[in-house]
């Protein structure tokens, strides 16, 4: 084994404990982002070989892709998570699923993704490889192609491990038109399963808390489930993926300045037992905890049972439920109705959820 001048150690194939050495280096170095030989190596051996596809392999300045027609939905999102690997997922799965879901809730069919990596110098090469493989697996699951990418390496200390930005393009079929303006009093509110799993799973890992039985993040691409629901409930009014800030954030956003109100029945909201227990212990409200594989749908009353059935028939919707409805009054308020018939405002998430004193 020879040492490079900067002290970074190329790993000889025979001594590597890595699953499959995509790079001669055990960790990412500045030159991997410089545009030179090491950059090319990393792009070819890791990104192109993992993500596959002709558009990427061309290594042109921009990917040229086919246009299947329809209006275009276009979005971008940057991802960072501590820890990078958490129960039920990792930053790679998160980055792909997040962008796929942003497109899918607009009624679009997610088709193309780009991936940009900001990597801190010294980042473990094996870990990077695992993240990239996870992205590929998630993209396959969602049926999208990663067609362009970028890599930058930040000097040690100037970035916190790994950031991934994904942008996505999807196509909205004719006749699909979703938006809060289409919501009417009497509509029903659905979610595709237990809320708060991701937030609590990540927090438990970060804080090193033992959780008894295992709890996993729900991170998953939802386009398949959404397609299945829209097939039987063509008049879905509105969808939003429930992510940071949880149901509380989505509820409060949607209702802002509207001429109707949103009512959640707290006993109808599916919450995992462990999430409930943990939340109670730390004084954290599961309605405010993050999700990465949940969608909130507003569906006309007469299509709500069909939509619920379609959700439940999908593996990502087995615990789906109708959790509330749209009411005439109070206007512009998201409220929670308790099991006792008493009502409160659905609290707006303020800061990151921190445990309380008592």
């Amino acid at each position, binding site marked *: 084994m020879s040492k490079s001048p900067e002290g970074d150690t190329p790993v000889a194939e025979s001594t590597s404990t890595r699953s499959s050495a995509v790079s001669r280096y055990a960790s990412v170095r500045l030159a991997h982002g410089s545009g030179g030989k090491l950059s090319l190596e990393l792009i070819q051996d890791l990104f192109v070989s993992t993500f596959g596809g002709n558009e990427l392999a061309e290594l042109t300045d921009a990917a040229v892709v086919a246009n299947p027609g329809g209006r275009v939905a276009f979005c971008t999102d940057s991802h960072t998570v501590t820890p990078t690997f958490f129960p039920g997922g990792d930053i790679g799965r998160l980055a792909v699923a997040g962008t796929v879901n942003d497109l899918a809730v607009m009624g679009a069919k997610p088709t193309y993704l780009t991936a940009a990596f900001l990597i801190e110098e010294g980042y473990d090469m094996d870990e990077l490889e695992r993240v990239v493989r996870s992205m590929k697996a998630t993209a396959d699951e969602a049926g999208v192609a990663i067609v362009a990418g970028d890599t930058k390496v930040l000097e040690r200390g100037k970035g916190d491990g790994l950031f991934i930005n994904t942008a996505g393009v999807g196509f909205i079929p004719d006749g699909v038109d979703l938006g809060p303006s289409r919501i*009417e*009093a*009497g509509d029903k509110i659905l979610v595709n399963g237990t809320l708060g799993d991701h937030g609590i799973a990540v927090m438990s890992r970060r*804080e090193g808390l033992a959780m008894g039985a295992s709890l996993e993040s729900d991170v998953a691409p939802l386009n398949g489930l959404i397609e299945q629901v829209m097939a039987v409930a063509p008049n879905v009014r509105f969808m939003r993926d429930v992510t940071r800030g949880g149901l509380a954030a989505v509820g409060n956003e949607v209702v802002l300045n509207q001429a109707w*109100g949103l*009512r959640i029945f707290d006993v109808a909201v599916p919450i995992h037992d462990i999430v409930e227990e943990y939340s109670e212990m*730390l*004084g954290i*409200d599961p309605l405010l905890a993050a999700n990465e594989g949940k969608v909130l749908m507003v569906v006309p009353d007469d299509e709500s049972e069909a939509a619920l059935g379609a959700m439940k028939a999908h593996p990502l919707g087995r615990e789906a439920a109708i959790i509330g*409805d*749209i*009411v*005439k*009054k*109070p206007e512009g*308020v998201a*409220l*929670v*109705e*308790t*099991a*006792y*018939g*008493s*009502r*409160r*405002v659905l*609290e*707006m998430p*303020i*800061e990151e959820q*921190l*445990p*309380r*004193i*008592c």
Partner: protein
Amino acid sequence: MSEAATPTFDFDPHIYKDADVVKGLQEKLATLADEIGRPVKLMHICGTHEHEMGRFALRDLIPESVEVLAGPGCPVCVCDNEYINMAIQLSLLDDVIVTSFGDMLAVPGSIPLEGERRGDVRMSLLDARAQGGDVRAVYSAFDAAQIARDNPDKEVVFFSVGFETTVVAVAAMLKRGAPDNLSIIEANYYTPPATHLLPELDGFDIEGFILPGHAVTITGLRVYEHLAEQGIACASGGFEPVDVLASIASLLEQLRDDKAIIDNPYSRLVKYDGNEKARSELHEVFELGPIRWRGIAEIPESGYKLRPEYQKYSAARKFAGRLDQRALAGAEHPKGCRCAEVTLGQIRPDECGVFGKLCTPDAPYGPCMVSHEGTCRAWYLYGMHKEKLNVEVA
């Protein structure tokens, strides 16, 4: 013990949220209020009670003639400026790490925040962190001790704020032997002496107290006998909807029967004499002394201070030479903030002129808007200042 206060419980914890049991208690309260036949004011003195009142919208279930006010039950809200300023100053020293419960981080002290456009805004530990201070949120005093062990070349300060339930943990940690580079800011409060003060306030008209279910597991109920002796009804209160309503039922029953005792409807956790063992450990490390309740007064025998043999863990002593003593004390509350009156139950949060305007949970102006235990915050988040949320369906 009163009959209303003790529906037959088994040990399924869900029973304390059970809708039928709640309904039964709701009816009981309505009957009692009718029997009393006049408006009644009750008070709880625990931030968690206010939080639960909001989360389950319990005021919707209580008869209109019965008002339940929030009293001095938020340790974060009554924590004096002096300690917050001290924590901020210490966090800005190069060799110091300040550890604190998350709740305390955003509470403004009295050091002005330079360059702030919102008005007379004071610095919090979060502002200190933004200015380069090493401030870390912890879950317990033991976490702080661990950080001290992991950073032997640094001084680690634990901002010890809270009532009995937190101070017993601090005592346990110090007794088991804490690292030398750990010290604490002594901002632990003992509530009973503050409740002595309340009946002396002008216009005091509270007829019953819900005693704080967490703290009395340790102090016991005996320490509130002075209230019953003054003719004020008392009942211990747990935190599930059934617990809260049961303690209100107990108070109303006492008022109907014209008596004032210390009832214990939360007897599944609270013993009349509290937890003797925890108390003796606590008093090995701490002794009671005077402490200032922010914006209210200095109250004798209401603060836990380190005993002489533990004073090497006192941050105030350890850093005496390095603190700017003059900058420690300051204006009590930011101008226009009526937290003291809110804390004493003299006004409702929405009677404060800046509630929901200059002062919101995302940009808190006064301490009562910061902590989850704070009355202003609970009112804002759960919409308790709004008119009753009557629903009209399509």
